[in-house]
């Protein structure tokens, strides 16, 4: 799952939204690290301006462009790990998705970024699950967690194409093959169809499969 560049997003936005985005990105760029003076979640003060833009991106740019605008804001602010964590924890589902999509661009240390991915994978919100299994997860999730993430995609109907580096991570994974086989058997025993994606991933686990 890739998000468009500033130039591409520019072409898709109307005049008002484009002007809003430019102003918001300028404010984000003026806040290096994205750090704020006050990181306490229940602080009485309003959040800093660019974080408010992060919240309002959907109504300013249209929901279909919200992911892209929010990821650009995070990148422009060079949001650090505490900022990413706060924005994720205090975010709507849409804002959390944007933080997840920004992880491979901002590359927080695994100790900071992986807990956010794991949180998203505990939800049953397919928009979050799909955003969680991107390149950052492919790079940093341990084998057990990654296998369960993939199984969760199959369970909740998230296309496994959302999973980055699928072929590479699945290649030669005998444990994943066993889990997929057991799941297929369970579905078959229940008289329910086996998801087509399951067979695709199962084929990828083969040691002879080119990936």
């Amino acid at each position, binding site marked *: 799952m890739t998000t468009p560049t500033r130039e591409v997003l520019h072409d898709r936005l109307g005049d008002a939204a484009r002007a809003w985005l430019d102003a918001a990105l300028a404010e984000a760029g003026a806040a290096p690290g994205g750090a704020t003076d006050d990181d306490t*979640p*229940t*602080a*009485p*003060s*309003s*959040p800093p301006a660019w974080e*408010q833009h992060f*919240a*309002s*991106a*959907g*109504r300013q740019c249209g*929901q279909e462009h*919200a992911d892209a605008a929010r990821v650009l804001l995070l990148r422009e602010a060079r949001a650090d790990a505490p900022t990413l964590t706060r924005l994720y924890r*205090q975010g*709507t*589902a*849409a*804002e*959390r998705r944007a933080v997840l999509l920004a992880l491979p661009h901002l590359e927080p240390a695994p100790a900071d970024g992986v807990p956010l991915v794991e949180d998203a994978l505990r*939800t*049953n*919100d*397919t*928009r979050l699950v*799909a955003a969680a299994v991107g390149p950052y997860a492919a790079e940093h999730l341990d084998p057990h967690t990654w296998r369960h993430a993939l199984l*969760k995609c199959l*369970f*909740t*109907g*998230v*296309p496994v194409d959302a999973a980055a580096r699928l072929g590479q991570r699945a290649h030669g994974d005998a444990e994943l093959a066993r889990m997929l086989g057991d799941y297929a058997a369970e579905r078959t025993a229940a008289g329910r169809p086996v998801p087509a994606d399951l067979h695709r991933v199962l084929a990828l686990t083969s040691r002879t499969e080119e990936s």
Partner: protein
Amino acid sequence: MRIFDPHIHMTSRTTDDYEAMYAAGVRALVEPSFWLGQPRTSPESFFDYFDSLLGWEPFRAAQYGIAHHCTVALNPKEANDPRCLPVLDALPRFLVKDNVVAVGEIGYDSMTPAEDTALAAQLQLAADHGLPALVHTPHRDKLTGMRRTIDVVRESALDPELVLLDHLNETTVKEAADSGCWLGFSIYPDTKMDEDRMVAVLKAHGTEKMLVNSAADWGKSDPLKTRRTADAMLAAGFTDDDVDQVLWRNPVAFYGRSGRLQLDAAAPGDLHEGNSILRGGE
């Protein structure tokens, strides 16, 4: 027939309700934050609840082709518990969210000084954030409570055009209308209003600024009361356009003042949004 339920607590309802609501014509709704039946004892319980209104519940609604928005506030009942008061300080970070279309529901429960303070503070928050306010009228001592509510609204920075007075009935509608606020009616199986009384109110007072909701929650209530009222209106001689005004255009106009309504909910069958709610362990 398209229906916008401007007040319904879907957190307390099942997916069967969503399915039945869609079949009845409901395409959009607003879920006000409210008392959950069991008193909360810390602000964090509220924050998790608000997060749910901004995360999981709109996701559930989208599975059934219904656009979900919410209002957030410290409700009057729990405003009386000092342990919950810090919620007021944290509200600004929720009020900037895309799906929040009003401050609410606020108002009076027992008409205490603590409720006075919370109501005035939250009307100010609405004015500060350019948001409307959903103000319910109390269940007990309703007429007096409504008069006091209107006084507080008049003293606030918020234009009455941005206030929806809810749970109105025959005894309160006249003064509520005179205040310049929008007028909400909750149609219930036994209490509050019923659909035939609602039709009588509409005949007497017209359809302008009138909103009808089910206010369905964890108590005895019915999420299809919006549709039942629409049917009763048609049976009583109101036109399709009258019904559309009360059940769609009026709530869209009121909550639209937030600038945040997104009424293009994903239709069932869309790639991401159309999956049934699976439990990941079925």
